[in-house]
């Protein structure tokens, strides 16, 4: 037992840092499924007492997954910025929490230490934080990225327009895109999850999105969320690739399950960047993550799912992404059981990603076998809006008919912008105005559609 804590005559022992982090985690079904969760509520708090007194430098000495065994561990260790760390090297995990919440730690101060923080330190401190702490700290941090518009500025909320269709039907997709644009969505990205896996189909969809963007001269970017190897081939054949998408995880083995490694991501990043299609910026990567992905690939190394999620952020931050999106409730109730667990994970992922310097968005979502409903999504959406989330999803009516899950809708995004006084990305907002989509009060117009469907070839048959 490397770590011990005595509470009222009971000695709580913890084998190693992995064990300590897992037991200290707020309850969630995925850790129970992996056999890593606290055995009692008291044991969980005992682990937090130990964690609170642990020096941050411990995390540089004791890795949760060995350096030799895992390239993500090597990325974390080799990429650690000792200079940035110096300012907080004297702190414990509990001390880090207190500092993050202090008035001295403003956004600039936190950004200055970001490269000195490892994912495990960030995971550890989040386990000592209540939901309001996760909101208060995240709200201080603005991570601003840019391609054809600028995402993540204070007072702004962007939306990924997600027009999926079960057979990738161009007209069906175009109809959803038009609907979303009319409701002010799409400033984060217009991004399709394709039903098919072929490069050919992806090329067709990319062309469709690029045609729409050019027809209306929209300052935004498009993406077909296909495997990175497909994107490489799309770049080679001259398809209009704005962004390179990939799902990533926090261990080498889980990434292997996704068919990727760091070298491949590097290659895809370079290839996409070489197209120079951005106007106001050149952040070209779009990553998706989610707690539980490593366990579901049987690649978790006995590490709890939230710590592994933070390690996925170490992968993301090596590639200056435009967008990082935790698809928080998609994986199902065996990892996050109910609305409470999904909410907690959403706030953790957002705060931890921002602490590590990432432009975090959230796919606030659930499946029908999870103990959650649209009321839970409303709560999570509102709290993330307060926390300053960079972007959320816009799915027609919140019902994704291809992936069969529920997310947030175009209307939900309007609600959040209205309620919290948030505005779209500035370039996109200007476009909405010039295209006649805004009423005199600055809200989305209630009048007849200001965009003609005739500009979209895939919608031509509407007139026929």
């Amino acid at each position, binding site marked *: 037992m490397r770590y011990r804590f005595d509470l009222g005559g009971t000695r709580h022992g913890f084998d190693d840092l992995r064990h300590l982090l897992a037991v200290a985690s707020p309850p969630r*079904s995925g850790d*129970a*499924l992996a056999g890593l969760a606290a055995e009692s509520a008291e044991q969980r708090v005992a682990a937090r007492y130990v964690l609170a007194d642990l020096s941050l430098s411990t995390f540089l000495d004791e890795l949760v997954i060995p350096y030799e065994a895992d390239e993500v561990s090597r990325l974390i260790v080799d990429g650690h910025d000792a200079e940035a760390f110096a300012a907080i090297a004297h702190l414990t995990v509990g001390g880090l929490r207190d500092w993050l919440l202090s008035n001295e730690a403003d956004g600039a101060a936190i950004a200055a230490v970001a490269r000195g923080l490892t994912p495990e330190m960030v995971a550890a401190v989040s386990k000592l934080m209540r939901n309001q702490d996760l909101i208060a700290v995240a709200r201080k941090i603005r991570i601003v990225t840019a391609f054809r518009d600028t995402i993540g500025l204070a007072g702004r909320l962007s939306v990924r327009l997600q*027009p*999926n*269709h*079960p057979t990738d*039907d161009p*007209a*069906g*997709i*175009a*109809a*959803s895109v*038009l*609907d979303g644009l009319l*409701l002010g969505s799409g400033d984060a990205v217009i991004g399709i999850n394709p039903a098919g896996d072929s490069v050919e189909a992806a090329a067709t969809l990319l062309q469709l999105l690029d045609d729409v963007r050019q027809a209306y001269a929209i300052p935004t970017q498009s993406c077909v969320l296909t495997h990175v190897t497909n994107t490489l081939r799309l770049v080679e054949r001259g398809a209009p690739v704005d962004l390179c998408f990939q799902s990533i995880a926090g261990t080498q083995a889980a990434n292997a399950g996704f068919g990727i490694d760091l070298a491949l991501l590097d290659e895809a990043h370079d290839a996409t960047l070489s197209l120079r299609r951005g106007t106001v910026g050149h952040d070209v990567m779009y990553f998706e993550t989610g707690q539980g992905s490593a366990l579901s690939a049987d690649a978790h190394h006995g590490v709890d799912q939230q710590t592994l999620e933070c390690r996925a952020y170490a992968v993301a931050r090596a590639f200056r992404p435009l967008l990082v999106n935790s698809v928080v409730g998609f994986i199902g*109730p*065996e990892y996050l*059981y109910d609305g409470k667990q999904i909410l907690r994970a959403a706030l953790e992922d957002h705060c931890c990603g921002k602490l590590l310097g990432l432009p975090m968005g959230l796919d606030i979502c659930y*499946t*029908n*076998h*999870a*103990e959650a*409903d*649209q009321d839970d999504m409303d709560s999570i959406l509102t709290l993330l809006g307060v926390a300053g989330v960079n972007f959320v999803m816009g799915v*027609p*009516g*919140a*019902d994704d*008919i291809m992936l*069969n*899950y*529920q997310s947030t*809708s175009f*209307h939900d995004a*309007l*609600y959040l*912008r*209205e309620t919290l006084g948030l505005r779209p990305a500035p370039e996109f907002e200007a476009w909405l105005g010039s295209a006649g989509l805004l009423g005199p009060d600055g*809200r*989305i117009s*209630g009048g007849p*559609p200001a965009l003609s*469907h005739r500009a979209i070839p895939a*919608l031509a048959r*509407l007139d026929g």
Partner: protein
Amino acid sequence: MAEPPVPTDLTGRLRSLTQARIALARTGQSLTTGALLDFELAHARARDAVHARLDVDALRAAIPGRALVVVRSRADDRTTYLQRPDLGRLLDRGDAARLAPAGAALAIVIGDGLSAIAVQRHAAPLVEALVARLADWSIAPIVVAHHARVALGDEIGAALGVDLVVMLIGERPGLSAPDSLGAYLTWAPRRGRRDSERNCVSNIRPPHGLGYRAAADRIGWLAERARAIRLTGVDLKDESPPAADLPRLPGDR
């Protein structure tokens, strides 16, 4: 919810291009009441499907003349089942002994999975079509399993000593399809088989999805192919002829 009339306006025509919930009416920033309730109804049906209990008596009545053996997984209740897929893959300790080697080549297992409603609606007619299609197979007594995951069929198939197990199981309900049945074929079933060692025929739910005859034909084709090459999974490519009674949209190739 009445069927919408043939759309004449642009909004209606736009909506006819996709099942997605587009062009929804708005009040302020929010949905109007009708659209709100439509969504709630779809979600309510999906939730009911997830939590419905399989009615074995009704199933027995719908499959006359065949013995049904009822077993359960180690997930004791729905809450455990949803959180512990590992327990849903293991046969309850007492039940293995009740499944003696049957001297049959093929076993059909009916599992509730994530939609007992799918099983209740589609399992019996599919079994009837399957039995007719699999006329040259010896078939073990049909097993009905509560709180079942797909892999539960492996242990059941092994206990019955069959070459091939066909697991009919309720799929995760979507908002538009709460009653979709899936069929999973596993050659030489035994505990520890991976999902890549199975073949699947999904979305069996006439009239919207695959019909019973078409599903039985495809399962039959896969079963014969599995018997020939003595395996299922990624190396058994589904080259079965296209289904005749799969609904087709106008303009589909």
